[in-house]
C-alpha cells in the first residue's frame, strides 16, 4: 500500500504539534525560571531567554526553612520506599512462589488496597494521628506513604519474582544453597529492574503527596516540599520567576529519576540467564 504525500505528512505534522503541546508547559517552567524579571513581565512573551539569571533560584531557596523542607521530603520519601520494598519483597515472594490457603484472597485484598481513596480518608487519618499526639511529626507521614505504595509494590514485584525461572532457584538449591541463600544470591539480583521500577513509582508518589501533609503538619519544621511549592504563590504574590524556579527545583529530581531509572528497568536482566 502506497501512501499519498498527504498521508505521509499529516501524522508527522500532528506529532510535531502534539510534541510542542506536551513539552511547552515544562519548557516554559524552566525558561521562566531563568529569565530576568523584566523578560517575564513583558507585554509580549520572550520565547527564548537571552539573558540567563539565577536570581530566582536564590529567591526560591532563600525561603525560611527551605533546607528543612528538602530534608523532610527526602527522609520521608526514601524511608517510605525502603520500608515498602522490604515488606513487599517478603510478601511478593510468598505470593509468587508458594502455594497456600487464602493466597487468592491476599492478592485480591492487595488489589483493592491499591485503589484506596486516600484523598478522601484524610479526616480519619487526621483524627488517628491527633489522638496519638503525632501531629507535626514525620513518623505518621512515613508510615502512611509506605502504605500508599505498598500494594502496588507487592503486586508488581510478584510479577517480577514469578518471571525469574524456577530452574535457577532449584539449581542453586541443588548446589547446596538454602532457600534464603537461593533467594539472596539468585533471585534478588535478577529482581533489580523490578525493584527499580517499583521504587521509582513509590518515590514519585511519596515525593508528590500533598493532601495528607497539608492537614497533618501545620508547623514549618515538619512540612515537605509540595507544601512549600503550593504556598509559594501566596507568599510571593506574583513573583512568577521565583515560583517557576521553585517548581523546577521540585520537578527536576522526578524528571531525572524517570528518565534514568526507566532505562535501567527496561534492560532485560533475565534474558540470558537460562540458556535453552
Amino acid at each position, binding site marked *: 500500500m502506497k501512501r499519498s504525500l498527504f498521508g505521509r505528512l499529516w501524522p508527522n505534522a500532528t506529532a510535531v504539534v502534539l510534541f510542542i503541546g506536551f513539552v511547552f508547559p515544562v519548557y516554559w517552567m524552566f525558561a521562566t525560571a531563568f529569565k530576568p524579571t523584566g523578560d517575564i513581565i513583558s507585554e509580549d512573551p520572550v520565547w527564548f531567554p537571552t539573558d540567563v539569571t539565577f536570581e530566582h533560584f536564590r529567591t526560591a531557596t532563600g525561603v525560611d526553612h527551605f533546607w528543612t523542607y528538602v530534608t523532610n521530603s527526602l527522609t520521608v520519601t526514601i524511608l517510605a520506599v525502603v520500608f515498602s520494598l522490604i515488606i513487599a519483597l517478603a510478601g511478593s515472594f510468598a505470593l509468587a512462589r508458594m502455594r497456600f490457603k487464602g493466597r487468592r484472597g491476599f492478592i485480591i485484598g492487595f488489589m483493592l488496597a491499591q485503589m484506596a481513596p486516600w484523598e478522601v480518608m484524610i479526616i480519619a487519618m487526621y483524627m488517628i494521628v491527633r489522638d496519638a499526639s503525632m501531629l507535626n511529626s514525620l513518623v505518621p507521614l512515613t508510615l502512611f506513604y509506605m*502504605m500508599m505504595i505498598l500494594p502496588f509494590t507487592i503486586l508488581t514485584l510478584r510479577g517480577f519474582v514469578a518471571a525469574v525461572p524456577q530452574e535457577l532457584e532449584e539449581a542453586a538449591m541443588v548446589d547446596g544453597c538454602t532457600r534464603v541463600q537461593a533467594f539472596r544470591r539468585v533471585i534478588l539480583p535478577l529482581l533489580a529492574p523490578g525493584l527499580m521500577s517499583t521504587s521509582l513509582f513509590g518515590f514519585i508518589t511519596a515525593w508528590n503527596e500533598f*493532601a495528607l501533609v497539608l492537614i497533618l503538619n501545620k508547623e514549618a519544621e515538619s512540612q515537605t516540599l509540595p507544601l512549600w511549592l503550593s504556598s509559594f504563590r501566596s507568599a510571593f504574590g506574583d513573583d512568577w520567576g521565583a515560583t517557576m524556579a521553585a517548581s523546577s527545583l521540585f520537578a527536576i529530581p522526578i524528571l531525572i529519576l524517570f528518565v534514568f531509572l526507566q532505562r535501567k528497568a527496561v534492560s532485560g536482566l533475565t534474558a540470558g540467564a537460562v540458556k535453552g
Partner: protein
Amino acid sequence: MASMTVQTERPPSGPADVRKGADVVGSGRPTQRAASRAGALGPYLLLLPACAATVLLLGWPLVKDVLLSFQNLNMAQLIQHVTEWNGVDNYKEVLTGEDFWRVTLRSILFTAVNVVLTMLLGALVGLLLARLGKRMRFTLMVGLVLAWAMPVVAASTVYQWLFAQRFGVVNWVLDKLGWHSMADYSWTSSQMSTFFVVTVLIVWQSIPFVAINLYAATTTIPTELYEAASLDGAGAWRSFTTVTLPFLRPFLYATTFLEIIWIFKAFVQVFTINGGGPDRLTEILPVYAYIEGVGNQHYGMGAAIAVLTILILLGLTAYYLRIVLKQEEDEL
C-alpha cells in the same frame, strides 16, 4: 522505552506465569516434605508485615472514618476530646441538604468529561505513535514522558502561570488570535473557566499514560491477523475495527477504570488551582469533604461525606471491579 508502561501501573490482571511457579514448591518431593510441613507457616509469616501494615494503616483509617461519621464532632468536641454519638444525624443532614447532591452531580460530570477526553485523545495519540516513523515516535514519546513525569503540584503551579491573568501566555495567544476580550481574562473568576484549566491540566497529564500503554499494546498484536484481514479484502478501517479494536478492548477497559478512579479523586489539581472556588463552585467530592470537614471544622460531617464518596466511587467502578475479581479467581 515502551516497556516503562508495563510496570508503571499494571492494569489489575494477574500475570499468568504465576501459576507455573506455584505448584512446584512445597508439596512435591519426598526429601522436602518434612521441611515443607514445618514451613507451612512460611508464606503467612512472609505476608505478615504487609498484612499488619494494611490493617493498621489502611483498615483502621477506613473503620475510623465510618465511626467518625456517626459522631457529632466539631471544634468544641475536638478540643475537649469528647466522643458524642449522634446516630445517622450527619448522614441525614448531608443527604437532605442540597449541596451534597449538587457536588455529587458535579463530580460525576467532571469525571465523565475528563475520562472521555483522556481516553479518546490518549487512544488517538497512541494510534498515532504506532503509525509514526522511528525518530518521530521517539521524539513524541519524550514529550509525553516529560508531561507524565511532571509532579502534580509543580504542574498545577505551571498551569497557573500559563493561565495567569497578567503576562500569562494563554491570554496573550488568545489576544493575538483576535479574541481581544481575553487579553486580561481571569481564568479563576468563574466556575467554567476554572474547570477548563483543571481539565486541560488533568487531560494533559493523563494522556501519556493511555497513549504510551496503548501503543505498547498495539505492538503485541500479531501481524498475521492484519495479513489475514487484508487477504479477506479488509481496508484500513475494517482491519482497525475487526483486528485492532477487539485486541485492545481489555486494555481499554482496564485503563478507563483506572482513569475513573484517579480523576474522581483529583483533589490536588482542583485544590491547588483555585481551592474549589470561586464561591465553592468547583468543589468536587474529595475537596467538599475536606472543606466541610477540616476547613469548616465539622469533622463528623466531613467523615460522612467521605464515606458516601467512597460508596459512590465503588458504585462507579463496580461493573469493572466485578470483571476483574472474577477474572482473578479464574486465573489464580
